[in-house]
């Protein structure tokens, strides 16, 4: 498994792996790609599946989930990130007021240190109690 030897040319991989429907597909690929642009080397590709596979541990998944939802990569999930997430999830079906309400509520629920954005520890605390995080956050190869 000499990933470097097999390093492939820059490739858009996500069209191959059946994730066309995932609203976060771009984010996933960006998160796992080394250059942050969605170009995956073979190593990144393997990385992605090792994180998303069924047997990978909750901690790892949590970390990558956090990265995926952290759109602007400032290591905090702020309201803007939440808004983007929500709009992706609902295809923009909610009214702006509803979106604001949901974002505020989410922050209020999960934010433990009161900085009105979610740090990783907030996120982990919240996700560790979620019942279907593990079952939903994985792909089958």
């Amino acid at each position: 498994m000499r990933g470097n030897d097999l390093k492939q040319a820059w490739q858009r991989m996500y069209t191959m792996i059946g994730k066309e429907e995932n609203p976060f597909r771009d984010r996933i690929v960006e998160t796992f790609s080394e250059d942050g642009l969605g170009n995956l080397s073979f190593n990144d590709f393997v990385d992605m599946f090792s994180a998303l596979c069924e047997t990978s541990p909750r901690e790892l998944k949590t970390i990558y989930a956090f990265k995926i939802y952290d759109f602007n990569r400032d290591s905090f999930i702020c309201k803007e990130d939440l808004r983007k997430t929500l709009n992706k999830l609902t295809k923009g079906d909610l009214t702006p007021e509803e979106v604001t309400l949901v974002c505020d509520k989410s922050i209020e629920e999960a934010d433990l240190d009161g900085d009105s954005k979610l740090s990783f520890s907030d996120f982990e605390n919240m996700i560790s109690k979620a019942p279907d995080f593990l079952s939903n956050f994985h792909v089958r190869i």
Partner: protein
Amino acid sequence: MPPKRKSNISINIEDVGMEVDASDSGSEVEARRKAKNRRAKPQRKAKRVSDDDDEDEEEEDEDQSPRKRGRKKKAKPRDSEDDEDEEEDNRNVKRKSSKASRKKAKDESDEESEDEREKKKKGASKKDKEESNKEKGKGKGKQGKDVGAEKDKKKKKNRKLSSSFEEEEEEEEKSDEESLSEGEMAALKEEVEEKKKLIATLRNKPWRMKRRLTLLKEAQDFVEKFEGALGKGKGRKLFAFKVMMAKKLIKFKRDFENFKTACIPWERKIKDVESHFGSSVASYFIFLRWMYGLNMVLLGLMFGLVVVPEVLMGLPYGSIPRKTVPREEQATAMDYSVLSDFEGYFKYSILFYGYYNNERQIGLLKFRLPLSYLLVGVGIFGYSLMVVIRTMARNANEGGDGGDEGDFTFSWKMFTSWDYLIGNSETADNKYASITTSFKESIVDEQMNQKDENIHLRRFLRVLANVLILLCLGGSGYLIYYVVKRSQVFANMNKDDLTWMEKNEVEFVMSLLGLVCPPLFEAIAELEDYHPRIALKWQLGRIFALFLGNLYTFLFALFDEVNAKLESEKDIKNATILALHEYAANYSSFYNTTVVPPQNVHPADVIRGPCWETAVGKEFVKLTVSDIQVTYLTILVGDFLRAVIVRFLNYCWCWDLEAGFPSYGEFDISGNVLGLIFNQGMIWMGAFYAPGLVGLNILRLLSSMYFQCWAVMCTNVPHERVFKASGSNNFYMGLLLLVLFLSLLPVVYTIMTLSPSFDCGPFSGQEKMYDVVMETIDQDLPAFIGNIFLYATNPGLIMPAVLLMVLALYYLNAVSKGYQQANIDLKKKMQMARDEEKNRRNNKDSTNQVMKDLEDLLPNKSLIPPAAEEEPPPPDVVVDKGSRSPKVKPGAAGKGVHLQRDVSLAAPNPRDPVTRDLGPRRGPPGNAMGPQPGPGKGRGGGRGGGRGGGRGRGGPPRP
């Protein structure tokens, strides 16, 4: 090879910046190893020139089995995992040592103890190794095999070695061993263990694959050197097999789960509906499905024990009067109008009570049909009661109102609701819809919670609404009562004098009430302004009360009919008996004989009674059928036609039909649920008199499942305020239980008090229906059982039994109350704990003094993660800054931000207690790790920290 590799490793370690356990342990090991080498070398050189350090060390770390020396040329690591191997080794050791013992017994004993210690250690670490093996998996597969093969060869060679040589070796070993102190040995072992742990947990770390590979290689090399390869030969194969089987098992389990889900009928349909219309509408369909399941069992009971035996073993159609259409009806018996009234052939068919014969035992099996009929009739109620109550109890466990499902409603929905497995566009669309719907549901809940209102006005309005509705109910109740009274008067008058209106007054009033009242209630309920979920319950309860009036009139009419039938039956019975006597007298006087042959009359010509049971059954069947018709017509006209008109007339209409007045229909949850419940009541009441009704009902439920699903999906629009149904369907179940109880009463009453018809049905000829049971007890069961029944029905026994039950009820009630209280207390405590945690984090001044003190005590400087210098910026991060991805906001994605993106994942929570041992953490203090690290700083969290995932991070940063 070894010296070079060693240096390589050390460089790598520094390169990659391994921290936590890995880095320092690595460097420590380096140092120690070097020291050791220095010490060991001179001695060794004295004995063997060809020896090189690596092997040496390996041997030292291994159990000091003497024969090891035999494989000097290739530093063959020994497989510690392979049990058989180990045993063999042991045996070897013993064999050899027995030889050696002649020479030096003392040394040998020493050695053995050493050996054993080593083994223990290995046993402990076995698990670790197994995992690390897994990690290595594919990568090492080939290599491992090779190693295994070589090893086997080695072993063979070993055995051939002469004992004398081994003894020599032993001596060498001894001297080597002495060069290492006990403490160093232990430390080395620890290092190895740590490395192994690293290998095992490597996959849990959020590192890039490249780094992981490097680390893995290093760790593997290290462990290999000091302990041996991690797998070979048989053990390896076995392990691979195990892994494969585990994978297969997982796959099988998954398939099985899928299969199980696929076996749930209509699961997909219901999920579709749920995703577009919310859980409240889906709850109706779930209820419908549950009802279907219940009715399937009832159908099995009824058809399996009553209908099918009668068809297979009973007399065929036309053999006896009760199974034949009377002569005067035969001409019209096949007409559609007659059949649609369930007269004619239907009336004298297996569908109804009257068709069944009263033969005690039928067929070859001597099946006791009458007994079976009675028991099934009662058993249906018993089973239904049991199932309903059990379901209610189970649902109650699953809990609550559905409103509160934890502290993270929105966040969970936000972050965990998308299923990453979805790859199909249709499923994805449904998922989008369902996520949106569920968000809307929660938003409605939330808005209700937030609403700030004038509580006095609200209370006043609610009282007013209830008064209004009570007035409505009272009015309609009186109306029903009045109309029924009038209809009784009309019934005594001549039919021809009555107008159509007067004849159908009751039905007319009932349907009018059913049409007007529910919307009226809904309008009044607007005043109350309840949460839609609660409003639905109120609505259900109110319409239920209204429908009870319906039931009342229906039963009233039915009892009148039954009484009339009983009267006429008495006459007919007397007349028949009289006729029979007359015939006998005539016959005997005419032929002058006492032996009277039975009258030879065709079964169709026999005079027969009205058979009130069949009449009752017919009423129920007719009612059910008309109910089905009305429901389906309503859907077709009220929903489908309306939708079509709104949709297509909208192009040429003067106002917007879709948004304006008619619009599309909403799914009427309360009406449908109540319709279902009352229909089920009809089935329960009617099943005894019309066994075919159960089959009819199954058809109805089946078709309505498909039809209504279709109608909802293509003609209705979601409710304006989609709301979450209560987690359990217990309110529906409660209504169902009430209806079950209400329908139980008349049936039991008729069974216990009315006498069955004399010429039709399985109980004909009996005084009371339950006499069948008595008869069976008397004739077919042993005497003592009869005695038991006698005692059991003794009031002296029944009274204490009832008392006991009451006491048990009381006790259980008290217990459940206690549990409830405990539950509430626990919830409160949890809430408090959560609030406290939040407070603690919010305010620097902790509310929890103890925790604060503890934190102050922590050597927080040493807990600050390794400094930035240890970790060169990962290459991937740097590339980012130039070319930014389209997703990244220009403002937010500055360079500094990028630099720490990978890193400050682990931004530690300042007030978080340390709960996790991440190994010693060294690092220069002063690396500010506040909650919001400034750009450029704060890399210190490091990737190593990321692994811990912020659960327990270092103390607060105090530079």
